[in-house]
């Protein structure tokens, strides 16, 4: 579904990605794990069009994305859940959710999807008229995911959904990620520092270090890999 080939990205003259390749197949959860500054968010932002690549190719359903602006990429069915949650703090929960369907015109289906999101996140329904900025961190993350779902994406890009959340909330979020994939068939590319959690829900994974993919494989293989155990799982 998504194919990234030899992607090179620079910030000024400094290379952030030195030619990475990865693939996400339909109905998969693929995770990209790595430390701070390894290039995880850069990869995601380049896929979603927020950052322009120096060279290499990004293909979504065989269509080249390299030169498309971010809002055009959203139209193709790629939704990003931005880092640090990125909800609109001064808009209400229901407004945030409606905005997720900004590009859709099918009003009755949107209302149905809203109900569906509320079923997945009953918390959001309880707080639908509250301003998003007044939600707790976990609730904001739920809102960011719910908003991305409102676009009915074919592929969801998630940037560190566990960031800054309490362990119990992290577990809840990952339970939902797994549910979305299993029950709804949503394809997800997940970026995480929390390798343990990420590998627990993913089918396959890539490990990125200073702009290069160093290991890849199924989640089981990665969990069994000694170096990864030491460096990322703390075992």
């Amino acid at each position, binding site marked *: 579904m998504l194919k990234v080939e030899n992607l090179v990205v620079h910030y000024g003259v400094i290379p952030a990605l030195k030619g990475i390749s990865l693939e996400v197949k339909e109905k998969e959860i693929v995770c990209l794990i790595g430390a701070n500054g390894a290039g995880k968010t850069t990869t995601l932002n380049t896929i979603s069009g927020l950052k322009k690549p120096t060279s290499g190719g990004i293909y979504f359903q065989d269509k080249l994305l390299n030169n498309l602006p971010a809002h055009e990429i959203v139209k193709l069915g790629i939704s990003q859940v931005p880092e640090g949650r990125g*909800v*609109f703090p001064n*808009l209400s929960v229901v407004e945030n959710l409606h*905005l997720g369907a900004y*590009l859709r015109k099918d009003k009755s289906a949107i209302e149905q999807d809203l109900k569906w999101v509320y079923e997945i996140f009953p918390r959001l329904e309880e707080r639908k008229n509250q301003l998003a900025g007044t939600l707790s961190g976990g609730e904001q993350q739920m809102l960011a995911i719910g908003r991305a779902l409102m*676009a009915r994406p074919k592929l969801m890009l998630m940037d560190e959904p566990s960031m800054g959340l309490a362990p119990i909330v992290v577990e809840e979020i990952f339970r939902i990620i797994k549910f979305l994939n299993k029950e709804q068939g949503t394809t997800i590319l997940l970026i995480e520092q929390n390798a343990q959690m990420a590998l627990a829900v993913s089918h396959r994974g890539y490990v990125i270090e200073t702009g290069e993919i160093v290991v890849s494989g199924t989640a089981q293989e990665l969990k069994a890999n000694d170096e990864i155990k030491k460096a990322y799982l703390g075992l």
Partner: protein
Amino acid sequence: MIQLKLSKNILKLIGAVVLLLLPLLVTNSYFIHIFISIGLYIILSLSLNLVTGFTGQLALGHAAFYGIGAYTSALLLLRFNVSYWLALVLSAVITGIFGFLLGLPALRLKGDYLGIVTLGFGEIVRLVFVNWYSLTRGPLGLPGIPAPKIGPYIFDSRIPFYYLIFGLAAFTVFFMHRLVNSGVGMAMITVKEDEIAAESIGIYPIKYKLLAFSLGAAFAGIAGSFYASYISFISPDTFLYMDSVTILAMVVLGGLGSIPGSIIGATVLVIVPELLRFMTNYRMLLYGALMVFMMIYRPQGFWGANKRVRNSYKIGIRGVSNEKDIRG
């Protein structure tokens, strides 16, 4: 709920009737002039509020658009003898085009940088007014701008001008209200809130910034056109940087991103300097001090945007009615 809505509408109706009958109640032409100024500044502050309050773009050159509107209208009336109503429309259109053109390069900048570019634009426009002598007569200004006419009736006193500005201001309020409560307005608010998040849901921020800038400029052009015919004389001195700042102060003092806020802000900042006239030389000192205190003790303005959800937004209200449906 319905009763509340009804009584609110009745209040609005009473307000409108009082405003319509005002020239009959108040015969002092100085007061009428103050009311006209308030109407004029309501248009200006609402138009800037669209850019700064709703879309979140700091603009320090709003007086330039006001000036372009005034000069466009004045030149059309003096040189081409067109009807005032055509000049009014054309000045809105032309000023809107200028807003769009300035927006093209400038809106790729953010925050303070955009502020400086718009400030520079304001100065350039003023210098063009001063130096393009063959067109604008420079610092001498353009005197004898004709008054509007409806058929044989010429606007020869302040009262018809009062009704004209009342109509224009009401139209502006109505237009802005509809705009910011539409999907377009929502998209503008997301651009202010978080541009990256806006892009991640498929909103193209530049498009909405340009729209806000063009519409904001066009409404400032309407205000300029009115001013030119009302005062019948314009010169570059009317459209200074200080005027941009005053309009911005009205927007901020009233409350960023709030339509009632801009109306209150314009009203207060037109009336207060008049009330303080008895203090002669200390007037502006006190005026400044008032603004400082306001920003310390009520930084969100008289009617901040935090009232927005309760105020008007349809989705929020629809959310409430859904709740009722669920509970049966």
